[in-house]
């Protein structure tokens, strides 16, 4: 038992992995083997990068002790801006980079407002959620613009790998997840982020540039959301103004399910990925097993509460054992 707690303390996201394995086995049996078929995995892995990237960004920001509710709107505005630029004749790569720059600016604004006026980021980004969604509708005129038919999006959406199991977006996602994981786990910046989120005053006293660290995390979070949105729009080949609606809460749920503490300082990129994968698996599994999909939100809600309660219980118990030991 003590060993289990030690493992949990070192790798809190493993509880999510265990749940993932259990659910995959359950859905596989209930769907007569269709759940783990190449076809369905292709579907799940094809959609994962979109919510996955947003979850990674939100998780890093939460580790830093802040919150971003505007990611769903940034997810829509970034590709909308990039698409309009492409339609206006700007080369695709430049348009994407300009879109991501816009996302970074939104992140900067979120951070600047939060830190300068010392208000909760929950409120600052809630305001930004509305502002950015409105801007998306305004610049599109309410109507989704038509992307050129010959626009090459293979770098983001083409199927690759054995049996075409992945989209290229999945490779982007893996690369970004590894880089983000290395950033958090093995770099000075990562230590600063954890210290800023976990012990703000102590971190400041020790010379960590907390303001700059937070601004960086806000901007990273927005850029991740914007990139996720670009991938989705290229996959659907349609820049819809409504995409990403409600995504912010799914991303927070993914982070929490993956073991990120709401109080900051604790969390991993792997946890965010596992959390996002769990959400996708539940969404897909309910359809596959013909359970009424209206239970989806119930399942995510229950899982979120369960994850927070069990994480805090496990953390307390593990600490007690550590102290007693």
């Amino acid at each position: 038992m003590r060993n289990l707690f030690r493992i949990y303390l070192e790798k809190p996201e493993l509880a999510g992995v265990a749940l993932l394995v259990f659910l995959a086995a359950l859905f596989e049996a209930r769907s007569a083997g269709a759940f783990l078929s190449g076809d369905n995995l292709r579907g799940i892995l094809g959609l994962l990068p979109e919510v996955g990237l947003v979850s990674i960004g939100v998780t890093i920001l939460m580790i830093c002790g802040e919150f971003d509710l505007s990611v769903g709107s940034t997810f829509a505005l970034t590709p909308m801006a990039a698409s309009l630029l492409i339609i206006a004749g700007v080369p695709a790569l430049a348009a994407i980079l300009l879109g991501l720059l816009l996302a970074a600016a939104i992140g900067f604004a979120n951070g600047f407002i939060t830190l300068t006026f010392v208000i909760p980021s929950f409120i600052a980004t809630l305001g930004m959620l509305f502002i950015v969604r409105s801007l998306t509708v305004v610049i599109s005129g309410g109507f989704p613009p038509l992307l050129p038919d010959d626009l090459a999006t293979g770098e983001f959406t083409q199927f690759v790998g054995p049996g075409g199991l992945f989209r290229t977006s999945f490779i982007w996602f893996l690369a970004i997840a590894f880089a983000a994981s290395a950033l958090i786990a093995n770099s000075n910046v990562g230590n600063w982020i954890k210290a800023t989120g976990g012990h703000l005053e102590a971190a400041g006293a020790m010379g960590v540039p907390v303001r700059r660290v937070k601004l960086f995390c806000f901007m990273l979070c927005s850029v991740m959301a914007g990139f996720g949105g670009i991938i989705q729009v290229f996959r659907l080949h349609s820049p819809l103004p409504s995409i990403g609606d409600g995504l912010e809460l799914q991303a927070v749920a993914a982070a929490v399910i993956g073991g990120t503490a709401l109080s900051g300082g604790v969390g991993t990129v792997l946890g965010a990925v596992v959390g996002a994968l769990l959400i996708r698996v539940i969404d897909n599994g309910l359809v596959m097993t013909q359970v009424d999909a209206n239970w989806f939100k119930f399942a995510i809600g229950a899982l979120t509460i369960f994850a927070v309660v069990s994480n805090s219980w496990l953390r307390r118990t593990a600490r007690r054992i550590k102290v007693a030991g």
Partner: protein
Amino acid sequence: MGKHSIASQALSGIGVAALSLALSGPAAAEDKLNIVYTHHSSASNPFWQAVKKGFDDACAKIQANCQMVFTQTEGSIDQEVANQQAALARKPDALITTLVDNNAFVANLKDAKAKGVIVIASNVDATEGPELELRQAFVGQNFVPAGTTLGRRMAALFPKEGPLRVLVGVNSPGQNWSEQRAKGIMHGLEEFKKANPNREIVIDRLDVSADGAVVSDRVGAYLSAHPDTTAYIETGLWHSNVARLLKDRNIPPGKILLGGFDLAPQVIEQLKSGYIQVEIDQQPYEQGFLPVMQVYLEKKVGLAPADIDSGEAVFTPDQADQLMGLAKQGLR
């Protein structure tokens, strides 16, 4: 019994339940037809309950194994795409689906074709592009003519003299069904405008959303700014919320004319109260029922699915009582 043993018994109980759920396997029998219906609407939209009833009734008649998948967010195309993907991974015999965007579903429909899955568009069809080639038939309303009919019927009720101001509410800008109906409505109204060159006629178009509360807020704001509005015509069924708003503001029925699409109990109620003057129906029950029958005919007899226009029936307040009877049975 100690705390721990209760907890461990509870845990093992949950484990056994999960295991038996896992081992019980899918309910479908091998020889039954598997039919999935995916669309862009959430379960809270009353229109889709009538489609679902038609779908379920048809499936019961041919003893098919059927599933209708709603989206979590009203009108979410990306969620519909994800639901289609999950459904197609099980290789059903048929996919019945709405095609609310001309590009978003192409990859899934190609996948369906490669797997030999019958695809029938229902309720909303693509307006152009490869999706039209990839689906075998469309069962639903022809939106532009239906919109034109609504525009004409509403225009016939306009006052014979004086300036006119008409608000056209587009519920889902960019989605085929809403855009095409709006196009038809505008066409009907423009005809009236041309026929009356000496009258001052203002036609405004507004994104009113597909959420009843938002529709009533936005139209309410417009009416506050323009109390002289003659009529509000929309592409969906949320004008019943506007009817309620007019009642709250003590505006008598008929002062501001209301017209829209689809019958739901809330709409029929407002037809009866006289706030809504014209309603165009597209027979949602048929849109659920007939595609299933077409799948059956193709699979069992080899007859190919064909387009069916489920109509543009015009309803007026005098038919409200009869309609309410059908609505209570879930047929309207």
